[in-house]
């Protein structure tokens, strides 16, 4: 077990370098600090005008936590798509277990980086948008953020599997992100969605993660969000397994139909 973990750690570091080598420091700073600032600002000010200053915290926290999706939804989809997957898949590692290792090491990077994104968002929320962390239960918050980031990777894998067939992974990824953005109770509660859309929100782990984050900032202990964390984890397992299965299927199909050249 220890050896597996060590291997995981080693491959993660390599993977991190490989994944982010195309991204120079300036690009990273812009994507991690500048873009989120403006995105958050827009919705916070919009909320300030339409809902009033007392509802700001709701929107600010929602927008902050959803930044995990940049990495665990979109990032995973990008790094698991086409050339990025097949190009770097070591020839030796072709067993399903090795595939799992490869995926896990990539996902680890994304989960941690995703948490970073949420933390930065929450910092903005505290510094600029008047969210008070005085009551916050930091332990709960950290655990919630970790779960929020981790559990979205299942969906990320599902989208990645779709991208094996479709040329432009960016578009699917973008659409998936926007769907999550609209449905997961980030700017308004899920109850305000039309009835037929609500089930979709309830199968996305982030919906629970955001609500749990709001609770933890209000001071809730870990036990209080236990149910949500459990649901998130179950969804993660289901979606992860489904994604994994789909991925292998599509990978096989893509090889057979020669759609790899599409990349």
């Amino acid at each position, binding site marked *: 077990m220890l050896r597996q973990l060590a291997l995981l750690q080693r491959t993660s570091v390599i993977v991190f370098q490989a994944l982010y080598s195309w991204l120079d420091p300036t690009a990273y700073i812009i994507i991690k600090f500048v*873009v989120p600032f*403006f995105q958050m600002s827009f919705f916070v000010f*919009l*909320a300030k005008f339409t809902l009033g200053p007392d509802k700001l915290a709701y929107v600010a926290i929602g927008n902050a936590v959803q930044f995990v999706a940049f990495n665990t939804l979109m990032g995973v989809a990008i790094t698991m798509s086409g050339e990025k997957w097949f190009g770097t898949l070591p020839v030796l590692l072709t067993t399903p277990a090795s595939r799992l290792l490869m995926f896990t090491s990539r996902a680890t990077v994304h989960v941690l980086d995703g948490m970073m994104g949420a933390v930065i968002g929450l910092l903005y929320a505290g510094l600029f948008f008047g969210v008070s962390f005085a009551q916050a239960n930091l332990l709960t918050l950290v655990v919630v953020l970790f779960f929020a980031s981790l559990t979205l990777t299942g969906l990320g894998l599902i989208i990645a599997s779709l991208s094996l067939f479709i040329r432009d992974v960016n578009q699917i990824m*973008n659409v998936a992100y926007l769907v999550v953005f609209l449905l997961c109770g980030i700017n308004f509660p899920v109850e305000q969605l039309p009835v037929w859309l609500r089930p979709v929100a309830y199968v996305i782990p982030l919906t629970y993660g955001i609500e749990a984050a709001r609770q933890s900032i209000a001071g809730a202990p870990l036990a209080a969000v236990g149910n949500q964390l459990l649901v998130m984890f179950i969804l993660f397992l289901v979606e992860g397994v489904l994604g994994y299965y789909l991925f292998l299927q599509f990978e096989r199909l893509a090889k057979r139909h020669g759609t790899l050249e599409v990349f």
Partner: protein
Amino acid sequence: MRRHFQVFRAAARASIEDYISQPLWPLFLTITPFAFALVGVVLYKDAPRAVFALYVILGSGAMGMWSSTLDGAGYSVGYDRIWGTIQYTFITPASQLWIMAGRSLIYTAVGLLTLVEILIVTALFFGVQLTIASPLAFLLAALLTFLAFAVIGLLLGSFFMLTRVAGHWQNAFSYSLYVFCGVMYPISVLPGWLRPVSYVLAPTWSLEAIRMSVNSGVLGDPRYLTNLGLTLLLLALYVLLAWYLQRVVEHRVRVNADLERM
């Protein structure tokens, strides 16, 4: 001058032809502003109909135009480099500025798609209601708003040619104008220290002028005229800046042999 218009028309036509060759592209270009505007639809749904129309519907148009213009500017400079087409246009007598202007016009126009999409959504679920008491004033302000985004696109194009890392700036600017120009909320909502940025952005003024035009007798209103005047002034400044940047680029390219490496 005739030559400049010919180049302008040619660049616009080439952009249209490019879009036609990938018909779903405009939809994808404007999908983010559409999604963001949908949030506006939900947050404003209980507001008076006039307020809804002024902020959500018009705002979505502005967001779409900005997103499309920004992406268009980045896209055209980026692809010119990838395709290697920039050398060719450089050695023709055509002015790079007029080429960019032609393209920018089309990119901005494509952004209006968001407005259409939100109009459809709103009409389906809520019904639209907006009476414009000063239609002429409205049209004038709307035209200027469109122009404002197109000229900003021109400026961005010049700027993106100057830097080798256009993609970074494209990302950095992506939602900035949503925040500063009062597209979906009045700029009075912004904290004092952020407002100066709003003031130097032309769409801030023209959007305000549009909102004023729902009232009657606005055409002679000094505040309305000031808004238009400021918009025009800023646009003139942008054009000047774009022209200057273009000259810098041309000189730099010829001295540094940057064109392919750009």
